């Protein structure tokens, strides 16, 4: 039994403890501190990559303290790493490495706290991905959460971070407690906490109220983390104000981890019991598409660049959930690759925004108009990453979305392609509009919305503005990440490998055998046959279409005032401002209300359709 899975969590924890213990010594030795954190996260990334490669031939199972299950009952905690879970954890470690490198010259003054919290955050994400125990999942979820709340409020001298951290912490805590209630419910039925064992126990019977509601409560907490409408309201508050290197992790992996958790819980525990019914697809698909479109619309009207990127993350989270909802191996494989590609380009976009903030001291699209012309390399990287976000071939995002769409049309739901292209184009258009306006000075500066100007003006103390040149430690991670998104899309045979991993992820019987009996099934039984993961004309058309749509929308966004048909002063959708603002109100009472109402709606539909 290789100790790597345990070490991937424990090493960052030990390093965090060591840094904290040596606080007085390290406080003034920034370089030692940075170096230790970067090396630790890079080492974790390597460990996870090794696990990922090993897991390609069968789940890597690790029983803590050596308590192996006897007669199908687990008495200890296990890590069960498949290629997808190890891959997602590896992605998290890579992003932590990149953002720690970026932070090398970024923060004006930084205590050891930042490094400690980043490392505990990394450990939480890794443990969350690898664990095979439902309560252990909750523990790492909370470690991830607590570290993330604290990192959000890293600049407590400003208002925005405090609002963001409070709303983030309170909504996610409510979600975590609902999840814990679901865990207690399912434990009260099965007397087990191991996901495989629970799955085996509940799949013997028809699903009843307890199983349905336990599923509902557990995924609620995860969907809150995954920013699915109407549980998404905390996200723009938190992502817009956290330090930029932290935003990379929030948007790049933390949100996706919530959705991964929902998929894991479904495929390892509830899938067989609930019977993979059309109702599950229907509910998750509805939530996903609603999120994708709503997030994209909010994204387009935003002027605060970090917040704009946050809304684009919501939109993409919706696309991911829609892909998961298809329940097919090809759909899941598409989501996996899309998540990787999205994480890389989104991280690159955030890092470029960080460079702009570092050099020009603002993240307000209106006031930055044309002011970043001299940041040529940053502009190129930002534009390339924005095109990647719009699913331009052959970015990884393009491959992933192509498979989701292919899988949808096999399942007879080709119409969702339209919505996916629409939301990709809207999001890509908004980000390209920023690129064109800020880095190239195209078009007219957008009208200054006084409220948004006030919101953006606050971003000052994160980094000292107006440095002479961009440090290499900032631009290199951004460029490498954007290039990696392209490279991942060009890996030969990617489709077959990832789809094989997705088939295994969805094979509950195989997972059970691997965890509880230590056996590996040679031929996993797929619920839906594996689809064709080749690049088809339809997928190229869709990728090119959304990228072209994004360019057109960006052009319209920059030049619409000059169009002859529109008279000056016309604001599209101006009348909608009221309801839009009322929904995203920033008031925590509203957010909790929406959570309660959302759970009730999803629960009601589940109850009516699954009984």
């Amino acid at each position, binding site marked *: 039994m290789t100790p790597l899975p345990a070490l991937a969590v424990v090493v960052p924890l030990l390093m965090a403890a060591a840094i904290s213990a040596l606080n007085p010594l390290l406080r003034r030795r920034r370089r030692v501190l940075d170096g230790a954190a970067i090396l630790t996260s890079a080492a974790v990334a390597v460990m996870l990559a090794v696990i990922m490669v090993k897991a390609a031939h069968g789940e890597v199972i690790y029983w803590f303290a050596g308590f192996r299950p006897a007669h199908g009952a687990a008495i200890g905690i296990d890590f069960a790493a498949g290629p997808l879970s190890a891959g997602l954890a590896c992605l998290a470690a890579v992003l932590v490495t990149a953002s720690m490198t970026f932070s090398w010259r970024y923060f004006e003054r930084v205590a050891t706290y930042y490094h400690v919290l980043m490392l505990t955050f990394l450990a939480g994400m890794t443990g969350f991905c690898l664990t095979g125990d439902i309560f252990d999942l909750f523990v790492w979820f909370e470690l991830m959460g607590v570290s993330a709340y604290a990192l959000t409020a890293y600049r407590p001298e400003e208002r925005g971070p405090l609002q963001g951290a409070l709303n983030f912490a309170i909504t996610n805590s409510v979600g975590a407690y609902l999840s814990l*209630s679901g865990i207690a*419910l399912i434990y009260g039925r099965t007397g087990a906490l191991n996901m495989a064992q629970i799955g085996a126990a509940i799949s013997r019977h028809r699903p009843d109220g307890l199983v349905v509601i336990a599923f509902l409560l557990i995924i609620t907490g995860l969907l809150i983390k995954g920013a699915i409408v109407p549980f998404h309201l905390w996200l723009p508050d938190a992502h817009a104000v956290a330090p930029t290197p932290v935003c990379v992790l929030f948007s790049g992996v933390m949100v996706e981890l919530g959705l991964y958790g929902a998929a894991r819980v479904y495929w390892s525990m509830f899938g067989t019991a609930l019977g993979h019914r059309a109702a599950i697809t229907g509910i998750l698909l509805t939530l996903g598409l609603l999120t994708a479109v709503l997030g994209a619309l909010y994204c387009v009207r935003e002027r605060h660049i970090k917040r704009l990127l946050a809304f684009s993350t919501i939109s993409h989270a919706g696309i991911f959930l829609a892909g998961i909802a298809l329940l097919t191996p090809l759909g899941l494989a598409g989501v996996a690759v899309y998540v990787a590609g999205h994480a890389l380009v989104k991280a690159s976009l955030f890092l470029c925004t960080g460079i702009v903030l570092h050099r020009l001291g603002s993240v307000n699209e209106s006031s930055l108009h044309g002011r970043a012309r001299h940041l040529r390399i940053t502009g190129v990287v930002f534009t390339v990453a924005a095109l990647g976000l719009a699913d331009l071939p052959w970015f990884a995002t393009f491959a992933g979305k192509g498979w989701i769409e292919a899988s949808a049309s096999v399942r007879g739901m080709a119409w969702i392609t339209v919505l996916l292209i629409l939301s990709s184009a809207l999001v890509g258009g908004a980000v390209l509009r920023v690129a064109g306006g800020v880095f190239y000075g195209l078009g007219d500066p957008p009208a200054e919305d006084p409220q948004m100007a006030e919101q953006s003006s606050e971003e000052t103390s994160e980094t000292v503005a107006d440095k002479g040149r961009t440090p290499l430690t900032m631009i290199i991670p951004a460029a490498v990440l954007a290039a990696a998104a392209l490279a991942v899309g060009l890996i030969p045979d990617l489709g077959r490998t990832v789809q094989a991993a997705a088939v295994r992820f969805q094979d509950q019987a195989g997972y059970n055998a691997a965890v509880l009996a230590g056996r590996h099934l040679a031929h996993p039984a797929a619920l839906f046959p594996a689809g064709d993961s080749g690049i088809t004309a339809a997928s190229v058309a869709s990728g090119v279409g959304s990228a072209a749509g994004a360019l057109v929308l960006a052009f319209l966004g920059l030049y619409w005032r000059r169009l002859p048909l529109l008279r000056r002063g016309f604001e599209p959708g101006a009348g909608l401002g009221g309801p839009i603002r009322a929904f995203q109100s920033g008031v925590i009472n509203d957010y909790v209300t929406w959570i309660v109402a959302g759970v009730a709606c999803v629960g009601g539909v589940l109850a009516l359709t699954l009984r």
Partner: protein
Amino acid sequence: MAFFPFVVVVWILAVGLYGMVTSRHLMHLIMCLIVVQSSTYVLLLGVGYKTGAVAPYFFDIPVHTPAVDPVVQALALTDVVVEAAVTALLLAFAIQAHKRFGTLDPHELVQLKG
């Protein structure tokens, strides 16, 4: 009696959430969150209870005495630690929020919206 403890669980959750939704003071809201979490303790210990069984300590009783489930108690202990940790962090946020906003009314603690 068979389901009364679980009805209490739902009641605690409901009043806790009601408090959070109607709260006009962040400290009040944080304490309501504590109430929401306390419903999970009652649920956890409730599902692990066995009528007539002893606490799982075999210091001075024979090892084979029927005992209640020790696992949920360990889970509840973890839950209590999480409660303490999250509350402490929220209080720190609240103190700083009060300095910046000059109030703890959740309706006024809004810098970003729309």
